[in-house]
């Protein structure tokens, strides 16, 4: 097995995440699209009810299958990583990058004497129960990071696809294909190997996986709120215009009418730090995936995008002084401050981004959008190249922002 203690290399980390590249449709308002499918293996207890040995068995089964080459494509191959082999900072980096969930990142790192790839029953003194790592891992496609599969999170498998801009259909089709590839065909079918496989795994020995499914309840998940399609479709939006014109509530009502949730991406309650919001389906049961997809991508999101653009036009027209004041204050703060908290960074970057969209600030949108990520704690430390305490992080954040927001 290839051990990976740093899944995202320093250059990739510093460049930012591909899904923040601002290359997708409606990227001025829609930051990114995400599809997540929850699946469990048939005939096995879900992770919460499994023993350590059972989870280890599921992990090995999934590893052999996911790393057999069936998900590799030209220019992209899957990398496998046991969560417990990663340092806490590396795990935070992956959470910030949306490749694994916060829950998946929890769990104790290995004690120094136990090799990363050891099964619990290794040579010599077996580790005690307290030091046995919880079997959890993930596979991620590199270098594009568009597909990630978590193993032994709340469900055995969580397949996720991320795309920049409004690309929910493409993300869904990609996740759907990966789901079919992971499942294979009938049991005993040989998975076709496209690229090179991990050493020790012969593609022809990798059969398909059987999913837990019921014709009444659909794909069976640990939490009943995910049962059915097991599909969570979500879109991240940047809505500073609607906040400044006081119209966010209008958007929330429109979303609710279609049983879609509109929530602040960072921060709780109605406050959305950085004016970042997420629209996602509440229900996964009773409706086909493509109908829900259509509702989000073709019915609600175009309306929200239009509302936001109208709000920005109003601000740039009738309320120009307010817009300029907000944008130039934010820019001035980030260009001058010597200590910046993560919240201040997001709040002010949001206004700078609005300034770019309304023609007030001559900076590149994608560069500023990546700063939403690079100013977060783990990414910041990776940019600087060492671990920093909170005070040093505030200094480093301020330095990074001044460097990146200087207008030539």
């Amino acid at each position, binding site marked *: 097995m290839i051990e990976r203690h740093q899944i995202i290399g320093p250059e990739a980390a510093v460049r930012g995440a591909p899904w923040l590249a601002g290359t997708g449709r409606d990227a001025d308002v829609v930051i990114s699209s995400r599809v997540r499918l929850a699946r*469990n293996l*048939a*005939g*096995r*207890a*879900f992770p*919460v*009810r499994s023993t350590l040995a059972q989870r280890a068995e599921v992990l090995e089964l999934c590893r052999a299958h996911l790393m057999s080459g069936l998900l590799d494509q030209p220019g992209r191959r899957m990398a496998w990583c046991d969560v417990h082999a990663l340092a806490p900072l590396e795990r935070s980096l992956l959470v910030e990058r949306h490749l694994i969930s916060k829950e998946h990142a929890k769990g104790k790192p290995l004690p120094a004497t136990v090799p990363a790839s050891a099964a619990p029953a290794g040579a010599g003194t077996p580790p005690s129960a307290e030091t046995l790592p919880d079997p959890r891992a993930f596979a991620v496609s590199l270098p594009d990071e568009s597909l990630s599969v978590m193993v032994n999170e*709340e469900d055995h498998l969580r397949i996720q696809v991320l795309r920049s801009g409004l690309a929910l259909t493409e993300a869904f089709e990609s996740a*759907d294909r990966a*789901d079919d590839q992971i*499942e*294979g*065909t*009938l*049991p*005993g079918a040989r998975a076709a190997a496209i690229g090179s496989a991990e050493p020790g795994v012969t593609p022809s020995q990798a059969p*398909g996986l*059987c*999913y*837990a*499914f*019921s*014709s*009444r*309840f*659909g*794909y*069976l*998940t*640990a*939490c*009943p*709120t995910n*049962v*059915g*399609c097991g*599909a969570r479709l979500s879109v991240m939006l940047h809505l500073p215009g609607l906040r400044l014109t006081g119209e966010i509530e209008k958007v929330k009502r429109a979303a*609710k009418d279609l*049983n879609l*949730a509109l*929530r602040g991406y960072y921060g*709780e*309650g*109605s406050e959305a730090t950085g004016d970042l919001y997420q629209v996602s389906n*509440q*229900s*996964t*049961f*009773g*409706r*086909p*995936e*493509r*109908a829900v*997809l*259509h*509702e989000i991508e*073709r*019915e609600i999101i175009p309306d929200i995008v239009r509302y936001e653009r109208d709000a920005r036009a109003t601000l740039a027209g009738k309320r120009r002084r307010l817009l300029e004041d907000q944008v130039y204050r934010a820019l001035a703060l980030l260009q001058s401050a010597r200590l910046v908290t993560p919240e201040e960074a997001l709040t002010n970057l949001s206004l700078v981004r609005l300034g770019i969209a309304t023609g007030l600030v001559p900076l590149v949108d994608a560069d500023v959008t990546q700063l939403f990520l690079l100013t977060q704690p783990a990414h910041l430390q990776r940019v600087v190249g060492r671990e920093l305490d909170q005070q040093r992080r505030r200094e480093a954040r301020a330095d990074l922002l001044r460097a990146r927001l200087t207008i030539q």
Partner: protein
Amino acid sequence: MKCDGCDRPATVHNLVIVKGHPTEQHLCELCAQKAGLQTGAIPVAQLLLHGLKSQSAAIAAGEPVKGPVPAAPPTCPRCGLSYGQFRHQGLLGCGGCYEAFAEQLGPLLDRAHEGATHHTGKIPRRIVATATSPAAGGSPSAAPGSITIDPADLARREAALRKQLEQAVAAEQFERAACLRDELRKLAALGEPGGTG
């Protein structure tokens, strides 16, 4: 389901009628308290179990019990999880729990998924392959772990899809209606052995 205001699970469900328009609120304890709502509200799952418990307690005390005597809360025969344990941790233990707790899960799913009773989305490929294989003829014994589709479920699936199709057409969402028609076509193919999966 998640709280309207944050990412915690929603345990307080409130129906507000403003100018004749009903609006549902789903909040966690904290947000409900902030909103000034009474938070002694008991989660739906607990309400169901409470009814069972109070009757069981009455039986144990030798009191006469009105109405039918309920069975003890079920336990999943495959993983041993009890319904009470599920209520406490919010997560099921295995696929078998869905059948074991089918009766209790019904109302929960109804609330969480807008009254849906049947899955109408994707079916795993191997099940489609089994169902449409001319050789197998839809036989459930084709492979270990494979499940066939109950014809009654197929019928309910079709009924649910037709209803959604009518709603989409009524709402003039013709593209969404087209998606639903595609699903109905796939369903028709599934019902015929040897048809395309």
